[in-house]
């Protein structure tokens, strides 16, 4: 017992420095950033040592509804489209590469290195390289001319085309419908899996939410006075290609490790039961890779939600067709020197990343408890 106690004290002492450092340099600063975001702090105030005024949620409100903050709303839309495309591309390409590498081919180690190599670069380097490659007049657009074909006619990161245009005033409704649909799907999934009462509660909640949407509850959340169209900017394709080039090797490595972890006996058993090669993947391999897919989504998701360097290098900063909240935050804080608004954007980014990370942390903590 005495020994256990001493161990515990030693453990606490060992952990204490990092806990204190984390408390100051992560949590205190997060708190101080949130507090700043509730003020109108700016450079003149700070330099003349006058206190900033408390303005409540005004910075957040104006970001979502102010006529001058259209840039921020473009950023939100861009982030959503970019994140979805980037994750989908990384997962499918990574899985494809992993399955191909898993066919016991010759020189597997070499291919593995080649595919993983881009990850060793920083996004800044990736950005510079792809900025050259995507130059509309002398990048990959002219490649087909080497074999006598006409050049590709796509503007890449300076494209000003836009698909799926919609009015920002409809945004709350669209988001609510998507959220309600997801909740409904989750409920149906639970119902199908394990008929618990929770499943009925979830479905009930989704139905309630639909009624609220139908009655105009979501529409009333709109605070923007004038119509403002946003949509999927085709320039984002350039970002997605560059980012996928860098990160798909990582998903490949994760999937490959997962594939290697599946015992050969399981596959054999499936084959004996009469499954074809596709059936083995469909019913044995894929379900066992699900947790890996989840962790890959978490890692890629938080990268794409707070992406800065790649976009900054490729777009030069003020190209709104590929703009991201991180860049806006940087310019608002350091070029406009409006610290309050900059802090508000940073806080919103933190919330976005948290919505991805926290469910993951909760679920992984739960599994640990179950396992121990």
């Amino acid at each position: 017992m005495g020994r256990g106690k001493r161990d515990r004290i030693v453990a606490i002492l060992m952990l204490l420095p990092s806990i204190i450092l984390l408390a100051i340099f992560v949590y205190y600063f997060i708190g101080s950033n949130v507090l700043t975001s509730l003020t109108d702090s700016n450079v003149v105030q700070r330099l003349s040592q006058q206190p900033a005024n408390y303005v409540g949620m005004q910075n957040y409100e104006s970001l979502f509804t102010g006529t001058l903050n259209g840039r921020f709303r473009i950023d939100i839309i861009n982030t959503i489209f970019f994140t979805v495309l980037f994750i989908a591309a990384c997962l499918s390409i990574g899985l494809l590469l992993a399955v191909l590498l898993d066919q016991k081919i010759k020189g597997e180690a070499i291919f593995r290195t080649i595919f993983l190599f881009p990850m060793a670069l920083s996004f800044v380097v990736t950005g510079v390289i792809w900025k050259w490659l995507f130059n509309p007049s002398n990048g990959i657009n002219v490649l087909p001319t080497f074999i006598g074909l006409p050049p590709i006619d796509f503007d890449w990161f300076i494209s000003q085309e836009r698909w799926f245009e919609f009015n920002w005033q409809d945004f709350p409704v669209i988001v609510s419908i998507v959220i309600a649909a997801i909740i409904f799907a989750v409920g149906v999934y639970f119902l199908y899996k394990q008929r618990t009462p929770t499943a009925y509660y979830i479905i009930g909640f989704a139905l309630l939410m639909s009624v609220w949407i139908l009655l105009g509850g979501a529409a009333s959340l709109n605070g923007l006075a004038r119509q403002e169209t946003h949509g999927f900017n085709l320039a984002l394709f350039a970002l997605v290609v560059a980012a996928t080039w860098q990160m798909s090797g990582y998903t490949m490595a994760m999937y490959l490790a997962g594939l290697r972890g599946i015992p050969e006996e399981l596959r054999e058993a499936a084959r004996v039961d009469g499954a074809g090669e596709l059936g083995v993947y469909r019913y044995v391999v894929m379900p066992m890779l699900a947790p890996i897919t989840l962790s890959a989504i978490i890692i890629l998701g938080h990268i794409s939600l707070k992406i800065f360097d790649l976009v900054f290098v490729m777009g030069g900063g003020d190209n709104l067709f590929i703009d991201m909240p991180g860049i806006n935050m940087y310019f608002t804080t350091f070029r406009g020197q409006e610290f309050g608004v900059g802090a508000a954007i940073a806080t919103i980014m933190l919330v976005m990343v948290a919505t991805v990370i926290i469910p993951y942390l909760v679920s992984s903590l739960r599994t640990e408890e179950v396992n121990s």
Partner: protein
Amino acid sequence: MKRFSIFLLVFAVALLSLMPAAAQDEAPSGDLEIFSWWVGGGEAAGLEALIEDFAAKYPDVNVINAAVAGGAGVNATAVLTSRMLGGDPPDTFQWHAGEELSSIWVRAGLLEPLNDMYEENGWFEAFPQGLLDLISDDEGNVYVVPVNIHRSNVMWYVPGNLEEWGVTVPASWDEFVNETCPTLQEQGVTPISVGETWTQVHLWESVALGVLGPEGYAGLWDGSTDWTSDTVTSVFETFGQVLDCANEDMSALSWQDASQMVAEGSAAFNIMGDWAAGLFLVDLGLVADEGFAWAPSPGTEGTFMMLSDTFGLPVGAPNAGAVRAWLNYLGSVEAQDIFNPLKGSLPANTQADISNEELYNVYFQDAYNDWTSNEIAGSLAHGVVASRAFMNGFNDIIASFAADHDATSAAANAAILGLQTGDF
């Protein structure tokens, strides 16, 4: 009695310790940290030449060139702000004259007035009054020493190319949009080359000056021109038409790329500050009046839209004595004649040797005539007429305008922005 002698002793020691400080005023020593965003090309060369000459005159001063690269001064601003807030100011720093200076540093009381230095050197007479107004407060206190003058409303072209395409330099934006632009587009030539967003703001200020005239343009910044009026909306409309005449890959180009399009003959005109003269003359090796030529941007004949780089003495600078020596040197004819030919700008000190053709090339001879005879306007893109906060917001307005071409909402947004940042 004993106590008195101790007092005397202490007094004497104190007096002794003051001696070196008094001596310091005569011959400054120690470190002198000069903060700027001049890291490349002629700017860096000019600064280094200045530092070398200064160090030869004051061998006891150890000059530290603390230039911060990147982001057209954005990074430098961030570093400077955090150092000022952290109580670690550099000895002296570069900043644009005008509203950008007064809306932050002067308003916050972080710069020492330099009136005594101006009087000693007779600079109140040597620097033009219009420039002095930009760097002093309402009570007549002067806060910085300007090293140069740049012109922003310059239109660059290649005379031979214009002849070949059958166009002349347009005298107004109407003429450019309705006559010059279609003629050039028919021949597959880009009428005007533009680069990334700040160069679009740079183009906007030339359009605004050309459409509104010097008085109307100045009125934008003192509140006498109404931003929501039809005339200002028409500025944005004209600007939109000019953008329609421009290259499509603007957001991929730096100002150098855009100016180079003119030299290469793929574009007819480019509007850029006179630092482009250095690009044409030095980097591209062209001959003035043959390989390239210049004119005031359309409709701005007789107006010189200017900007100026300055250095000042921050409150609490670690080595004020050395800064004073540096500023004294910076404003002198000698220093201005070293710096400006390298940086490619006009000397702010009117006593500088502008007629010396070995120092100032043919472009600057011409520009100097305009500087001394024209009406003066302040540049928006370079911080003379508006604060940094306004500039940042206006950048966003131009970026979205480039995409949607909505003149009414752009003008209205600019009006709201001006109220919010307190600029007009």
